């Protein structure tokens, strides 16, 4: 039995189980039938295991170079190192959808086991919704749309494959970025399924919110960290020293992250004040729909993007899926809109809930403007036939002011009490942050920042940092007074006792790091390009760069021409090896930058051109990019803060007593 037989068989059996699970969960939810629910739960675990087998079979086929499978022949070669062979599972369409299906099957199994214990009927309907989604993805991977196990006729099996796309086997971050994004994308389906279940059942209470808080937070954090990992990958691989280009595929990832961020804040208004119910459900539906729209844009090949994917039958299917989600979500929301009406109003403009509302409006505005910029070429062509592209200036011009306003609200919101603030509160809360903001502006001006946006970014970053520091200082002081703890014990206790709040502040600090890194690297990068003979040197921003020589490096899977550079200056001594890499499956050599990363700045070197015949000269481009490594560190801090926020508080562990399935279903 081959890897292909195992994988294809497991997926078909998985599809049968998913369809069974869909029927069983729907019946269990409708008739409150405990046996049907037990069956759906068992089937969920079975389906997950089968999809896991299929994914492992694909990894096995890649590692053993089983070129009888089209996917392996197109994305693997005998010379591909084992690490890149294994992660080629997500190097192309069919494998990516297979990984996606595995994560979704995991989410289904999780809801089946955990969810149906705490909120049996609601979770059972949500489970049915998730089974429907899983069935859809299993249809994709078992039909021509994205079948990863399509075979090559016995007489046509190649002796060697073409190997993965050169850009996808040039950096280990490839192992991290796509799975993180897929995890983030897929986990948005859990809050969506619960929201749909709540709408179907007409439940107007907020229990589904509490139940899905962790999934929402996890999907948001994974998406965020995945986006930063993608930016880092693009920085380290693509060789132009940038990390974001407003490419349609990047936009596809940022849009659901923006609406998910809005949701994580507005959900607090619902929890505290029972307001914004319709809005929150709309955000959950929008976030999920945007992940599917993003997948559609990425995978259907309808937009012109650097992430070029071949067209396949998957496009129309994903479009149908997207429209079905919109129709179902919007239809149910409009049907129940009367029951969801708020019984109160937001009230004072200077209250925490008002700031959350403003912030939400800005996040949605940011999403819609990115969506418009991404879809505009399609709209323009549909309406007038004109083919055009929307460049970065549109996005910068629209998104930078929105981003700065959001940064301001990020400092403002946590300092304001619910319901409204008195003048005395405002003075107490904002004296230090306003002074810090002035200090931040001064630092920016002294550092030579030019332009309103970078200076304002520094000022607002200092403002937010001061508010966070103030919150921690107050929290520690209060605990020391109330519990007689030491400063450190009180600081740690803030996270363990109220992780959600203080984890949130850590996230804010991470965002500040990201924003400062973007503002500084965008406005203060110094670049110089020189053609040097071996032994020649160039000086850039205090760094002395010497070209020692050029040499060829041969590896089984690629041939590289490397420039040996010595970098000295600003207290650092580094050897860098930027190169031009030639893969056998690509006509064009791809640049592999040499990067000396530092907390102050990165020295980013590129071998732009060289003397092919005698290696007598090389054109070296050097970019000194300040604070860019803070961007990656900021992403990690955001992820860490989210982890603190999601960590269960000590007391919650003791109350988690599962109820027997039959009783729970009957009792609902």
């Amino acid at each position, binding site marked *: 039995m081959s890897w292909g037989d195992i994988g294809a068989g497991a997926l078909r059996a998985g599809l049968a189980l998913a369809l069974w699970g869909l029927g069983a969960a729907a019946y269990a939810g409708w008739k409150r039938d405990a046996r049907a629910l037990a069956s759906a739960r068992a089937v969920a675990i079975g389906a997950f295991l089968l999809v896991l087998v299929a994914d492992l079979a694909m990894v096995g086929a890649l590692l053993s170079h089983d070129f009888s499978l089209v996917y392996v022949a197109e994305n693997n070669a005998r010379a591909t190192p084992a690490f890149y062979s294994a992660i080629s599972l997500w190097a192309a369409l069919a494998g990516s959808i297979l990984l996606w299906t595995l994560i979704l099957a995991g989410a289904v199994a999780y809801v089946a086991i955990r969810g149906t214990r705490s909120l049996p009927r609601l979770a059972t309907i949500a489970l049915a919704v998730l089974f429907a989604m899983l069935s859809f993805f299993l249809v994709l991977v078992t039909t021509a749309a994205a079948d990863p196990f399509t075979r090559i006729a016995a007489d046509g099996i190649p002796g060697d494959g073409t190997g993965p796309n050169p850009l996808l086997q040039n950096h280990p971050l490839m192992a991290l970025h796509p799975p993180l994004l897929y995890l983030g994308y897929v986990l948005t389906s859990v809050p969506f399924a619960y929201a749909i279940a709540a709408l179907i059942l007409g439940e107007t209470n907020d229990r589904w919110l509490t139940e899905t808080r962790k999934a929402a937070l996890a999907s948001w954090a994974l998406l965020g960290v995945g986006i930063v990992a993608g930016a880092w990958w693009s920085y380290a691989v693509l060789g132009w020293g940038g990390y974001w280009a407003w490419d349609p595929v990047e936009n596809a990832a940022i849009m659901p992250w923006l609406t998910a961020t809005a949701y994580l804040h507005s959900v607090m208004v619902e929890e505290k004040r029972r307001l914004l119910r319709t809005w929150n459900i709309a955000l959950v539906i929008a976030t999920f729909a945007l992940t599917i729209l993003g997948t559609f844009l990425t995978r*259907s*090949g309808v937009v012109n993007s650097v992430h070029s994917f071949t067209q396949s039958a998957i496009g129309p299917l994903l*479009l149908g899926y997207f429209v079905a989600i919109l129709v179902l979500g919007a239809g149910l929301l409009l049907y129940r809109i009367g029951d969801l009406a708020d019984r109160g109003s937001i009230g004072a403009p200077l209250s925490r809930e008002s700031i959350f509302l403003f912030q939400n409006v800005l996040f949605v505005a940011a999403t819609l403007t990115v969506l418009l910029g991404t879809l505009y070429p399609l709209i323009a062509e549909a309406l007038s036939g004109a083919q055009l592209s929307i460049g970065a200036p549109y996005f910068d011009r629209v998104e930078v002011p929105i981003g700065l306003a959001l940064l301001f609200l990020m400092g403002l919101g946590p300092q304001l009490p619910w319901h409204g603030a008195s003048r005395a509160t405002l003075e107490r809360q904002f004296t230090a942050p306003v002074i810090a903001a002035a200090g931040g502006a001064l630092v920016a001006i002294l550092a030579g920042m030019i332009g309103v946006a970078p200076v304002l970014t520094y000022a607002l970053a200092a403002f937010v940092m001061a508010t966070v520091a103030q919150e921690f200082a107050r929290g520690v002081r209060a605990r020391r007074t109330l519990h007689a703890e030491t400063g450190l014990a009180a600081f740690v206790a803030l996270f363990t006792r109220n992780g959600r709040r203080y984890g949130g502040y850590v996230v804010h600090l991470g965002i500040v790091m990201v924003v400062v890194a973007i503002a500084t690297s965008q406005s203060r990068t110094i670049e110089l390009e020189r053609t040097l003979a071996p032994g020649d040197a160039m000086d850039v921003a205090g760094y002395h760069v010497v070209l020692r020589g050029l040499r060829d490096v041969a590896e089984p899977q690629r041939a590289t021409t490397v420039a040996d550079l010595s970098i000295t200056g600003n207290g650092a001594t580094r050897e860098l090896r930027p190169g031009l890499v030639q893969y056998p499956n690509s006509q064009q050599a791809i640049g592999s930058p040499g990067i000396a990363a530092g907390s102050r700045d990165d020295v980013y070197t590129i071998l732009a051109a060289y003397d092919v015949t005698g290696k007598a000269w090389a054109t070296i481009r050097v970019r000194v990019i300040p604070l860019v490594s803070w961007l990656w560190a900021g992403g990690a801090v955001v992820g860490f803060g989210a982890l603190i926020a999601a960590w269960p508080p000590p007391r919650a562990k003791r109350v988690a007593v599962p109820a027997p399935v039959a009783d729970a279903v009957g009792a609902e």
Partner: protein
Amino acid sequence: MKRVARYTAVALILGLALVLTLAFRRDPHDIKTGTVGKPAPAFTLRSLTDGTSVSLDQYKGKIVVLNFWASWCIPCKEENPALTNVWERYRGTDVVLLGVVFQDSADAARTYTTRLGNTWTSAIDGDGQVALRYGVFGPPETYFIGADGIIAGRHIGPIDESTLLTGIDTLRKAARP
């Protein structure tokens, strides 16, 4: 109110589905070259460096390599050495290299040309109308205009030196039969 919301939702979903469905009609990488073979649209713009007027008419009878670019565009930077070499080679001959900046601010574009040491003329297409008339998809894009004023070729994306030389040679041969 509810009815308005319902109609709006239906209209938005239908509109979005229609736009996305229509997008299947073509491959986005296959960009139409509608203006090739037709007379090059005339224009009069301001020079980036000194603000003087730059029009296509003033190069009548010459071969014009019209390069659309922007300072924020990374591939534009990549193709700059090729443009520089071609400019040095044909300077003062019957071949003119003319840059058109669009989707960009004049200040950013001026900083860009100074930093890269570009000395050929670039004109600023502030409202993007010239780019639109030529059917530019996005920067960088290069048009080869013959001595007869007809657009003979178009290159989308960063151009290399040999493509530039071949394009110019073909037009020179056509001009001197």
